[in-house]
């Protein structure tokens, strides 16, 4: 990890709008070839951050390097090497998919092949359809195709699946994985937990302009150090479980226990049930989900700070 070349290197980035501080001193490091997700609730500073990296916005303070360029001054030399997918579709409605891709390819010195671009985003069947007649999901995929047409080393995806139905999200995810197999570095922002979990090699969680956690989806927020939750129910009229289990009565007649050592807890629970002749009617063992981590990180206490 130490030796891997960085595509994006951000240190101490700050951005203020008047007296409002949208980004409050963040550090980000994205390695070449990885899919990096900046995850956070709406208004957390995701778009401000990504637009600074894209060169659309000035920063108030901090050092930013994108492919070795300062994006505020990179100009055409940087823009040849990055692809940008903004939150909103913005192309000529009366052109066809193939024409829009050709138009954008014409801006770049070494573009990807037109059919290849269209194929990667799964729009081959719609290549001669006018943009205005595409569905929302197809338009979004066209957006990604436009961002890819210059064969960028680094692709920015700002909330690529917001407003999608579940099947459109699945195919968008497949598409992002295709990009990864092409060796692209992908920087995506999202407020969907599962999206970050499915797509990203690494995730940073941003809340109120600050990074509150960073790591692989499996390790984020010390997820492996969170307690496993065991829930079970007992037949009516049964005695309470032994105090050693530290189980509490939860809703709908369920008992609930948290543990760092689920094997030990389950062993103690089932031993007691066998010896007492009690049938455990239901039993659930739930590892902490990324959603739990996310909610604990983005909870109201932190959001208000």
């Amino acid at each position: 990890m130490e030796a891997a070349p960085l595509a994006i290197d951000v240190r101490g980035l700050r951005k203020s709008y008047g007296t409002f501080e949208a980004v409050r001193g963040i550090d980000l490091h994205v390695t070449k070839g990885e899919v990096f997700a900046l995850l956070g609730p709406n208004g957390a500073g995701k778009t401000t951050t990504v637009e600074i990296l894209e060169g659309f916005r000035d920063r108030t303070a901090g050092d930013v390097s994108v492919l070795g360029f300062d994006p505020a001054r990179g100009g055409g030399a940087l823009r040849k090497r990055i692809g940008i997918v903004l939150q909103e579709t913005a192309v000529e409605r009366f052109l066809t998919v193939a024409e829009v891709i050709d138009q954008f390819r014409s801006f770049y010195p070494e573009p990807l092949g037109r059919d290849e671009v269209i194929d990667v985003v799964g729009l081959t069947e719609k290549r001669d359809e006018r943009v205005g007649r595409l569905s929302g999901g197809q338009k979004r995929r066209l957006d990604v195709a436009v961002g890819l047409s210059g064969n960028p080393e680094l692709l920015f995806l700002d909330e690529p699946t917001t407003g999608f139905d579940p099947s459109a999200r699945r195919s968008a995810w497949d598409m992002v994985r295709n990009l990864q197999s092409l060796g692209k570095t992908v920087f995506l922002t999202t407020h969907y937990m599962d999206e970050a979990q499915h797509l990203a090699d690494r995730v940073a969680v941003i809340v109120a302009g600050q990074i509150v956690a960073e790591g692989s989806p499996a390790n984020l927020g010390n997820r492996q150090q969170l307690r496993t939750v065991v829930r079970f129910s007992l037949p009516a009229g049964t005695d309470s479980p032994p105090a050693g289990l530290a189980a509490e009565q939860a809703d709908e007649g369920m008992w609930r226990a948290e543990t760092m050592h689920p094997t030990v807890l389950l062993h103690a629970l089932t031993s007691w049930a066998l010896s007492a002749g009690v049938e455990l009617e239901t039993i659930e063992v739930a590892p902490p989900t990324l959603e739990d981590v996310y909610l604990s990180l983005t909870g109201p206490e932190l959001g208000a700070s």
Partner: protein
Amino acid sequence: MAIRQFPYQNKAFWRNPAAAFFTFAFPLMFLVIFTTIFNNDTSTLPSGEEVSNSTYYTASILAFSVITACYTNVAISATSLREEGVLKRIRGTPLPGWSYLLAKILHSVFVMAILVGIVCVFGFVFYDVDLPARSLPAFLGTLFVGAASFCALGLACTAVTPNIDAAPAISNATLLPLLFISGVFIPIDAAPGWMKALGDVFPVKHFLVATFEGFIPPTGNRAGWLPGDLLIVAAWGAAGLVFAARRFTWEPHR
């Protein structure tokens, strides 16, 4: 760079047939209406020439075509490109934003040239209007100066237009009164002095006068050039360009 974008602009334009049709039909409608209302009458041109009203209106609708195809069209389409985020997206590519905008403007001028051709042919066929021959260079040169200046003023208008809903209102509200006080629709011989003086301040009247001169050159000026008026039009255009360069923004305002 801008030239390579032209074919895409052109395809997009013709695939919206309703918009294309009315772009061309609108000035012709005015030509027919005004020549019908003021039938068999004559008007005095600023140069002192007495001409039939059909000739007067063919020339003034030519000037009107240039002004709307450039000023109004550029103001509205540049605002729409900005507000839809097209300009922002282009700025994220190696293509300079102004290059894309220039392609759009060149296309507006191309549409204007077609429109000028249509109005000339219409006037010639239906109203027996004489087309300029000896003064052709002055006629085309005048249209060129007007096109460039009104495109620049269109960009200046976009720079002060906050959103797309306001674009037609602002461009028309700034233009229509000037069209009337400059004599584009109704000759202003009978208008009070202050109104004529007010019209003299703005570029529309000077462009109209120069277009009349190029289209119907008077005995004293067979070449048809009016450099003084063209200079005022060009000065307005230059001022519009400077204003646009300072105030134009590439991102949506909303």
